[in-house]
Structure formats: C-alpha cells, structure tokens
C-alpha cells in the first residue's frame, strides 16, 4: 500500500490507529478517580505529543540516518513559531498559511546554517549548530525584541492588522486560530460512564499532519536517498570513492529535518499563538536529542515514543503534589501513608527532573537501542513464549536484519 511493503504498511497502520484513538488510549482512568492524575488525554498535551513527535521524526532523519548530531535544531522550531505568529498577526488566523510560511522560513534558515555547519563533521558540526542556535536565542531574547517580543514571547494583540481577517472579534476578543473555519481549540467531550474523552480539532489536525510526516519519513528511510544518508553515516570515505559527493545528501537531510522542525514550530503556534524565545535555547535543542536517543535513534517510531515519554513526565509528573500523594495513599494506615508520601515526594512535583534523569540513565544503560529496543525485547519474549507452546522448528537461520531499519 502507498509504495510500502507489508511490514511498513502495518507499522503505518499502527501509528494511524494510535494517533486516531489517542483520546481514548491516553485517558484510561475514570476522570474522578485518584489515578486520573495519570490521564494525558487532554487537548494541550495530546497536541504536544504529536507536535514534538513531528519534531523528533524530523530530527531523526538527520541524526538517525546521517549521524550528524545537530545541537541547534530548536532554532528552526523557534523560527517556525515566530513566522507562524507573524502570519497570524499580519494575514489571517487560518493556520494553513502560517504553517506553510513556518516551513518555508525554517527551510531557508536551515539552508543557511546547514551550508555553513556541514563544512565540518563530528563534534565540530555539533558545536557549529549549537553556536548558531544560541546566537539566535540570545538575540531573540534581547536585541531582536521588536520582532520576537523577547522575554514574554510574541503574542497576538487586538491591534494587529490581520488583513484577511479581523483584528478583534465582535465580542472584543482576539480571534482564534482556525483551519478554514474549524477552530483549533474546538473540543467535544464524550462521557462514557465515569470516563471522559476529549476530541479536539487542533489535535486531529496535528495528528493527521504527524501521520503524513511519519509516512514521508518512512518513505525516505526506504528510499535510495535514505540509503545514501545511511551510507554517509557508515563510511563517507567509501561514498566519496564511489563517485558520490556526500555534501548534497547531508544538506538535503539537514534542510528536510529543519523543515520538519519548522512545521512543528508552526503547529505549536497554531495550537497556541505564542512564540517564546526559550523554544530556541540549547536546552530545547538538547531535548529533541534526548527524545531521539531515548526512543531509539535511527528507528522509525522511536523518536515519537521518546517525545511522548519526555513530554509526559514534564506535564504529568510535575503536577503531582503532596496533596495528590495523600489522596493516593489515603487507604493506608496513617504512619504508612506518611512514609510512602515522604518516599515518593522527592520524585514527583518539583522533583520531576530527578525522575527523568534517573530514567535517562536506566534506559540508556539497559536498553542501548532506546525504548524501541525495550519493545523489541518484550515482543521477542512474548513470541518465544508462544513458540515454546507451538514447539515449532526455530526459523532463526535468517541472518539478522540490520538494526538501523528496524522499526
């Protein structure tokens, strides 16, 4: 289907199913219950999952395939956000031109940075990209304030021109972002018994774009272009002596991945029309690196998992306070309740960084291939269990598939 082999088609279908049913999957607990704290199925977080998924998918096209570790990718995300918000300020609240402009500007920006940075490889390349991104961040925060609104971030105001729309609504508010009339924040809530599920227009737009982005990345991974990129990572010398110039390949990968970042930035601004300078800081660039490695660099679905993992901790664990803990452990006798709260306390709420740090170390130590490897091990374990039942002959004489194209 769609130029994919059977395995990839299955993978794509799984991703589509996950994205479409996310409102159900992410809200497994009844909304009134103590465990509802772990529900992640509210519009903002679901949007963030897929948007950062797109960002990480794009980053993986560069890092996972070519091995070039960009430490400044957040700059493209930031540039994309700023372009989109400017589009909302000047043109209209429709998200389509904003997203397109975000991709174009991020693309142009990445041509510039990529062309210069790709003159070096290895850590020298990483530092060049880092330097460009940090310059962008520092300038956006200070002297470029007329364009970026500095510390606060670029916001919409009531006196923006919006030539193809209205400056203010009839009620006197700022109009909201929409996709040809469908408001991005429109949400329908479905109540089933004690459960409550949110279906948000913005989320579904992001999810559809994410599926498309995933499909494109899938095609790139399986294409001759993707093969060349992996060749760049594997042995540039040989590629050169095979008559191929690695530079256009790496630059093309850099630009594609920059445009993915711009797309993610544009979507972020479309869901919530504000562009903060922190989006370009090195910590933001570091975050996408961590997402990709955590999920499994070079794998198709890993970066998406990594993005979801980190965003989940940031948004769910940081909101657990002692009050919530006491609620959870309320069924225990007082002494035990307090002890448990005391023990869990350092890891939640303001301690969510600690939990994340520990998990980084555990995952990378015990699952060298990231979360994807965890999944593979799990499924292998399950399959072996089933095989033992069947007592069938071991068909393991196939040479191992390359881990780099594993899903």
């Amino acid at each position, binding site marked *: 289907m769609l130029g994919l082999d059977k395995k990839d088609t299955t993978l794509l279908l799984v991703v589509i199913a996950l994205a479409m049913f996310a409102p159900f999957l992410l809200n497994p607990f009844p909304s009134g219950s103590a465990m509802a704290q772990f529900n992640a199925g509210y519009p903002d977080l679901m949007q963030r999952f897929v948007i950062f998924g797109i960002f990480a998918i794009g980053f993986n096209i560069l*890092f996972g395939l070519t*091995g070039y*570790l960009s430490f400044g990718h957040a700059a493209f995300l930031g540039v994309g956000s700023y372009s989109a918000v400017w589009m909302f300020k000047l043109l209209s609240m429709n998200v389509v031109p904003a997203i397109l402009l975000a991709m174009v500007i991020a693309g142009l920006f990445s041509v510039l940075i990529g062309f*210069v940075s790709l*003159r*070096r*490889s*290895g*850590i*020298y390349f990483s*530092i*060049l990209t*880092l*330097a*460009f991104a*940090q*310059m962008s961040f*520092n*300038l956006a*925060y*200070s*002297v470029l304030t007329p364009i970026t609104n500095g510390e606060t971030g670029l916001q919409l105001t009531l006196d923006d021109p919006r030539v193809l729309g209205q400056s203010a609504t009839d009620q006197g508010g700022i109009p909201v972002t929409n996709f040809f009339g469908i408001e991005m924040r429109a949400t329908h809530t479905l109540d089933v018994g004690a459960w409550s599920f949110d279906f948000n227009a913005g989320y579904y737009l992001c999810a559809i774009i994410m599926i498309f982005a995933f499909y494109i990345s899938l095609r790139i991974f399986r294409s001759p272009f993707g093969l060349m990129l992996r060749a760049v990572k594997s042995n540039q010398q040989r590629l050169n002596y095979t008559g191929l110039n690695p530079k256009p390949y790496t630059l093309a990968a850099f630009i594609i991945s920059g445009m993915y970042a711009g797309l993610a930035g544009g979507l972020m601004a479309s869901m919530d029309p504000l562009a903060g300078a922190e989006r370009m800081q*090195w910590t933001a660039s*570091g975050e996408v*690196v*961590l997402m990709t*490695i*955590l999920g499994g*660099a070079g794998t198709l679905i890993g970066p998406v998992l990594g993005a979801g993992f980190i965003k989940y901790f940031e948004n769910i664990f940081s909101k657990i306070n002692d009050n919530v803990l006491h609620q959870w452990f309320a069924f225990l006798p007082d002494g035990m309740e307090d002890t448990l709260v005391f023990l869990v306390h*350092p890891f939640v709420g303001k*301690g969510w*960084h*600690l939990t*994340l*740090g*520990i*998990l*980084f*170390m555990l*995952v*990378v*130590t015990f699952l*060298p291939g990231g979360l994807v490897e965890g999944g593979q091990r799990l499924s292998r374990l399950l399959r072996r269990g089933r095989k033992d039942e069947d007592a069938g002959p071991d068909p393991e004489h196939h040479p191992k598939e390359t881990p780099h194209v594993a899903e």
Partner: protein
Amino acid sequence: MDAILLQILNGLDKGSAYALIALGLTLIFGTLGVVNFAHGALFMLGAFCSVTLSRLLTLSFETIDETKTDFLGNPMKVKTPYVEAWFGPETGAAIIDWAVPLSILFAIPIMISIGFAMERGLIKHFYKRPHADQILVTFGLAIVLQEIIKYFFGANPIPTPAPDVFKGSFDFGVLLGFDPNVIIYPYWRMVYFLFAMIIIGGVFAFLQFTTFGMVVRAGMADRETVGLLGIDIDKRFTMMFGLAAAVAGLAGVMYAPINSPNYHMGMDFLVLSFVVVVVGGMGSLPGAVLAGFLLGILESFASMTWVKSILPGIDQIIIYLVAIIILLTRPRGLMGRKGVMED
C-alpha cells in the same frame, strides 16, 4: 588604554574559569573518548564542597536568649557554632572565615572519589557505546546530581564569602602610573587566577614529567598501541577521570566566593565549556587552555560600552560568533588533532 587593560584582567579571570573546566573536559575527551555532559555538574559539586564545609564549620548548638524575640514573638534561639565554642570565639571565627580555602583540602579527596565512582560505576560501560549514548547517560547523571543538591541545599544561591583578608580590591592603575581607581581588581579574583595557573601548570607538569603522565599521553595519542605494550591503560584512565573531576571540583571550590553557588551553575557553564574545548581543538590540552583565555578576553572586550554601541548585543553572542569563525577557518579548532571525535 586603561579600559583595555582592565578588560584584559577581566578576561584572564573569566578565562581561568573556562580554562580549568575545559581542561578537565579535554582530559576526559582525549583519554577516554567520552563526551561528558556531567562535567559541569562536577564543577558545581566542587562549589558545593565549599558550601558543605562552611555549613559543617558553622554547625551550631542553640541557646535561648530571653531578651530577644523571633519573628513570631517567641524567645529567640541564638546559635553558636561548635568551633567557636571549642576554639574560642576568635579562633573559631577565623576558621569559619577561611572555610573556602580549607575546602580545597576537603574537596580533593571527595572529588577524586566521585570521579572514581563515576568512572567505575557508569562511564566505563560506555566507552564502546556511541557518543549519543554517552551524552544521554551523562546528561541524566548531571540532572540527578543537580537535583540531589537542590533537594538538600535549595535552588537559591548560597553566599560563600572569601576570607576577610581577600575582601576589597587592588589598585593596579597606580602601579602603572594611572590615576587611582582606574584599574582596580578584587584580591580574590587575583587569587583565583593564580590558583588556576598553578592547577594548569600542575596538570601539565604531571603529564609531562611523570611516567604515569607519559603513558597517559601515549594513550591519548594511540590507545591500542599502548594497550598492546601490556600496560594496564584502563586503570590509568580511571585515575585520569579522578584527576579531571578533581580539577573541575577545585575550579568550583575557588569559584564559590566569586558567584554564590547554586544547583544549576554547572549547566550554565556546560555549554560554554564545550564551546571552549572544541574551539581549542579536540584532544589538545594546550588548546583548551588557550581557547579558555581567548574567549574570556574576547567576551570581556565585547562587553565594553563603545563596542556595544557599535554592535548592539555583541556581548550576547561573541563566544558563539568566535567559535563559528574559528571552526570555519581552522577545521580542528586552534590546536586540534586529526581524527578525534570527527565522526
């Protein structure tokens, strides 16, 4: 002229902090081939050695002073440090006053042990792993170390003053024939600069003149060959990690009076120190030191008012701009060797 001299002094001082951190980072890069994102955290731990020691020295017992009241109107508890009770108020106060320099003795064994523990417990399993994995694991470690410090010491900066004798500043200008107050420089910053020079000199001498250092240098150049000679290079590399941790820690100890330490000071320095190391050239110790001072001085120049009036915001980006220019004109930084961390 005077303004330039002043900024050179500033640059040397900033540069010595950069150079010390970059030196340790390069030792780890060069010998172990590990990208250590936890190096900034080691610097931070060093600074908190000072904090811890001054906390220990000011451990106090409480007596109730009925004549005073606290903010709730209850009788005030007055704290007297044990050291003052044991050694008498004056000697005790003097010991507390010298907490930061004393921390050097305290920090060396602690930082070396932390370095050993880190290398043996974690880093050594990552020698053969891709750099990306090293980044992830050391970044995770840095966060954990930071959060532990935050848990015990809070997020607020903690004032850690230098001994009273080093308070105030020295008037260089008068020495050079300028008017008074034109070129003044704080005593403690001069101490820091001298201290940095001693540490840098010590590390170089150690690598240059001891057999241990010779083996390590050979190992930096070609690990496999040295391994073939039957030398247990791993053990030496563990010690190198301890040394690098100690250098970072000492840089932190002495830095505490310059800026009150807080739990995320390491992250603030991390990115900068990577830039310094790379600009210096991967695997080159002199390069790291040179780049540290160069960037420190350029950063100071960029903060001069007339420079900023020509190029607004230049002080925000100067380090990165210089890094870009250097890396584009010199492919391997100032003094980098070929083939180190280029893939």
